[in-house]
């Protein structure tokens, strides 16, 4: 990084460069920087005005939050990049999502021993809402997904896996490639999957199916039921709560969940 040099020679050289640029009508970087500084101050004022009128709308309305986020993404701005950003400071969006991040981490940690670090977006949503209490701000599934995307950068393996009509949230640094994902998607329908089903739906050989299933078992994301009629079934504990409403009464379900 070279600094502006002192000395008559350097000054003369610089004046020459400036003159050349001005001749061609191009603007220098430092001039543009000064311009940006001014525009930034103006923008800050505009944002303050917007905040004074509509801050509540963003707080209370999940749909409006989605519009806001989408518009930011379209123009190339990330309102959640930093707590020190204008968006975060003036609209309060930052604190909302960063706190949500903390709550998501805590829920995932609490349930990891049971589901191996995989949880459906629905269950995560329910548990987070429970933790937040009755009077807290409304949180939508879209909010959760955005918070999770931000958590990825912390390196502890947060990921989002699309399955069926929803998502599985991964919160451990286990390596899950395309093969694992596709088996998870297959298992989502009934909560479990068998080697035969993988063979017929995905047209894989038995070895490949077994390898993928064993990896999921090792990671604690799948449980093996060798007593099932027919062949062994590989169940995903992450999907258990979705099946509760059918087989267990709500009272029993409440007791089972920590």
């Amino acid at each position: 990084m070279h600094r502006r040099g002192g000395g008559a020679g350097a000054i003369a050289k610089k004046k020459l460069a400036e003159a050349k640029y001005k001749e061609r009508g191009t603007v220098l970087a430092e001039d543009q920087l000064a311009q940006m500084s001014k525009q930034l101050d103006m923008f800050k004022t505009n944002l303050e005005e917007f905040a004074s009128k509509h801050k509540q709308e963003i707080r209370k309305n999940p749909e409006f939050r989605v519009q806001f986020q989408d518009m930011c993404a379209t123009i190339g701005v990330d309102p959640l990049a930093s707590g020190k950003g204008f968006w975060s400071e003036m609209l309060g969006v930052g604190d909302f999502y960063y706190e949500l991040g903390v709550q998501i981490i805590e829920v995932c940690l609490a349930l990891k021993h049971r589901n191996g670090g995989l949880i459906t977006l629905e269950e995560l949503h329910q548990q987070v809402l429970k933790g937040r209490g009755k009077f807290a701000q409304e949180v939508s599934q879209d909010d959760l997904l955005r918070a999770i995307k931000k958590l990825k950068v912390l390196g502890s393996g947060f990921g989002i896996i699309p399955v069926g009509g929803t998502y599985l949230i991964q919160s451990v640094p286990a390596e899950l490639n395309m093969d694992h994902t596709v088996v998870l998607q297959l298992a989502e329908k009934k909560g479990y999957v068998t080697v035969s089903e993988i063979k017929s739906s995905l047209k894989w050989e038995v070895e490949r199916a077994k390898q993928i299933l064993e990896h999921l078992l090792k990671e604690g994301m799948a449980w093996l039921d060798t007593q099932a009629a027919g062949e062994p079934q590989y169940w995903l504990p992450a999907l258990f709560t979705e099946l509760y409403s059918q087989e267990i009464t709500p009272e029993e379900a409440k007791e089972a969940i920590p």
Partner: protein
Amino acid sequence: MDRFSWTSGLLELGETLVLQQRGVRLYDGEEKVKFDSGVLLLSTHRLIWRDQKNHECCIAIPLSQVVFIEEQAAGIGKSAKIVAHLHPASSNKEPGPFQNSKYSYIKLSFKEHGQIEFFRRFSEEITQRRWENMPAGQTMQVNKDPQAGRIRAVGIVGIERKLEEKRKETDKNISEAFEDLSKLMEKAKEMVELSKSIANKIKEKQGDITEDETIRFKSYLLSMGIANPVTRETHGSGTHYHMQLAKQLAGMLQAPLEERGGIMSLTEVYCLVNRARGLELLSPEDLVNACKMLEPLKLPLRLRIFDSGVMVIELQSHNEEEMVASALETVSEKGSLTADEFAKLVGMSVLLAKERLLLAEKMGHLCRDDSVEGLRFYPNLFLTQS
């Protein structure tokens, strides 16, 4: 059943799924209809029924159509049911499977149980009327038909009118907010363009930019939330803000680190720091960028990234390699250990316990036994007994 409309079954923007239940059959009043085996979905806005065999066959009714619901207990050979009494269909309803019906109620028959929970949540949604706060991209069918088919308390009309006014008001607020937001975004877009131009010029060295000015530029990008297009060795993405933050973290984390054996994962740090702050929280990126400056600023903590991608903060005085030696002793004493077992014994998080065992393996002190029962570590006898 003439209140139902065909639908794609996809949730609208702002609409959230509340509960779903398989094995539900529909009745038009007292009569069975061909929708005999489906998944019933309750959202904040609608009741949706989708055929289990043919997913394309999907119908829905807005929750605003429901006057009240009641339970019908199961009997011998009969499943439990929920009876939903409905307002007359509105004239602008989307086409559905039935043009007309002589009944003003439908029954939902729960052949695979689940009616208790469903009734509870259904009641909640009808009471809370969340669809009014979250307009979901379709017009609400508020029914103002004075000729109600069945029992309808007079009070409901008045309440509906008030809610209609409130909805119009909310809609107006939202469209105004949306307009203002669009104008704001236009201005933000100009800033993005300008920053790209400056970044290009910096790359092509059109003019003299001092180091201070580069840092200033980075702080402008930070304020606007624009990704830094210029990568520099000096300070990386860091700005003065991140340097300050790094110093604060060094002060804040000293004691917690000592309590936890000198090492913490970045997710733990994120939670700890933000819980302590309460307000003006750090974004995950803020934390990572600040931690990257710990070593350059010669602070007593450092950021370490393991092969797996797991990121931790360690005290400078902490030596993970030394900890490996004691880990080896622990594993030898017990013969073999999994990450879970080791974590419990030593009082560490499973995440960090696993990293320590993996490091010990990398250094050649431990061997792994990878089976469906899990990953187990043994002392490396190949090394010691060769």
